[in-house]
């Protein structure tokens, strides 16, 4: 089983970006890169080849689901697992995100002390782990 180490975090809110970096790097001991929009995420993912992409659903410009679609079109990023992060709570939407190919969905607000453990748990439950 491959351990989860490199995470690309895509999020337009700089405060959330920074708190997630602490949560994953300092608390979780992972390596983190951050992007603040879908387009740069496509480029960064192709170049950096993360183990996992943590993708915010609602972003200005290209939103999360569209970014996921484009990641799946690019050969270099087709296989990289994606976990969505969203503040929306309707169960139907969660099902929808899983149906379009997300490993799972992390609900905002998240607890910085447990975020890394939460990602690892999803990772290990999935085929990727």
């Amino acid at each position: 089983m491959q351990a989860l180490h490199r995470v690309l975090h895509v999020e337009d809110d700089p405060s959330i970006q920074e708190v997630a970096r602490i949560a994953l790097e300092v608390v979780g001991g992972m390596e983190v890169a951050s992007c603040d929009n879908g387009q740069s995420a496509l480029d960064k993912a192709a170049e950096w080849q993360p183990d996992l992409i943590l993708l915010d659903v609602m972003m200005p410009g290209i939103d999360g689901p569209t970014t996921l679609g484009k990641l799946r079109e690019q050969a270099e990023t087709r296989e990289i697992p994606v976990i969505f992060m969203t503040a929306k709570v309707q169960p139907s939407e969660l099902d929808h995100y899983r149906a379009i190919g997300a490993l799972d969905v992390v609900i905002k607000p998240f607890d910085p002390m447990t975020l890394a453990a939460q990602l690892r748990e999803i990772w290990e439950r999935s085929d990727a782990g």
Partner: protein
Amino acid sequence: MQGEEVQRRLAALREQYAERIGNDLQTLMAQARELAARQRAVEPEALESLRHGLHRIAGSAGTFGYPALGQEAREMELWVQTVLETAVAPTSPMLTTLHDRLSGSYRLLENSATASVAEPQADYELVSGERAIRIAIMAEGDTHGLLQSLSGFGYDCRCLTEIEEWRSWRPDVVIIDTAHVEPAVWQASVAEVPSAMRVLLSDDGSFDARLQAVRAGAQGFFTHPLDVPALERRLRHLVSLPQQDPYRVLIVDDDVELAEHFRLTLKVAGIESRVIDQPSDVLRGLREFVPDLVLIDINMPGCSGTELARLIRFDDDWLRIPLIYLSAESDAERQAQALAQAGDDFLVKPISDVALTAAVTARAQRSRQLSQALARDGLTGLIKHPAIKELIEIEQSRTQRSGAEACVVMIDIDRFKSINDTYGHGTGDYVIRLLANLLRQRLRRVDHVGRYGGEEFVAVLPACSLDNACEAIERIRESFAQMECVAGKAVFHATFSAGVASTFDWADAGALLEAADRAMYEAKQSGRNRVCVARDTSV
């Protein structure tokens, strides 16, 4: 230590976040205020921008340790989303309600921020909300008299001149003398603190001048020469507004699913409701839930809506509560017949979520204002004796239900008769108002303060241990003893004695009040100007 390092970095981020979100909230408040003041329809783009701002807060506040703020933002976001989806233009009162909720959220953020800065180790329950109301005055010439009078009521008053001061000091209320300060000048300053409430002073008391004040977003308007007591009453009213509990609606409908839909719709708008599907449960529902308004389905098996309305009206306690029928009846004559028997209005089903929310909000607001005017003491604006007893009963049943401790405090001004005899009754009233204001400012938002009679006050402190209650009252006692009371040229100090009792020790509201009262007398007898605890001697 890695844990400490994480906590330190998170604390630093939390601080930055609070500052940024504070600014974001102020921007949203300004947007909502601007939309509410508009004469024309609100375009969807403007609502979309509000929704996006709220969405960001909803998704992030909890992560930074402001879960209540996040929840508030989520509910407001859902409300805006509902409005967007139904494509019904939001009315000005709806947007004003949104603005007020945003302003409440801002206070929530500010209170938790001051709490963590002021006393990181202390029980946050006690320090939150403990800050004098800040009033900025913009006037030309001699403002000394006004400053002194308002400071005498326990407000923190300043004349601000530099824009920078507005940003850093963040007043809660701004008093602007429009007769002497140019609109461009005060508007620029006030724009720095959109959350502040505005009171305008003018030489011109005409209808047009008042209308202009309304359009400038004023919540109060006074003409020269200034009636300071009236101004103080208005300030008291303004600063106590954000402390309002959500409106409460009792829904009586045998169609459980529809009733549940109404409940959720109202919840999105921040209105609490309880559903009753058996008409026979209505009296219990009224007693337990104490609603501001009752929605009654007119066609129910076993007991019609009009019969139920008449039955509710048998009881004097519920005469003041609006009873609104929900019905598919659109025939005006039959509606009139039903209203002639009892009930106050009709809402015709099917009703859109927005129309339901707007109708319920407007009536609940009116009902709440009326109840408050009836239940509040004219001199202090505090809750009156019978109402406070009801609150004690509510806290006691909460203790029995959830095991949470609450405390009741009886407070009596020392040697009040001698203050009246020496300085006159006017000064006596002034000392009562001084203590009322201090209690209101120093206690938490969830606490209730009532005037029990003459110079006696009762405070009800929910979710508060006996030790914390004593500590809080002790601090207020010290502050009060230090305050200077002014009577003409004389300056004197007044003090109070207090008795504290816990819902853990007494299971009955009457006994609890008596225990607090006995402890207060003990404080008087052992020398006054002190706080005594009622100990349960029977156990």
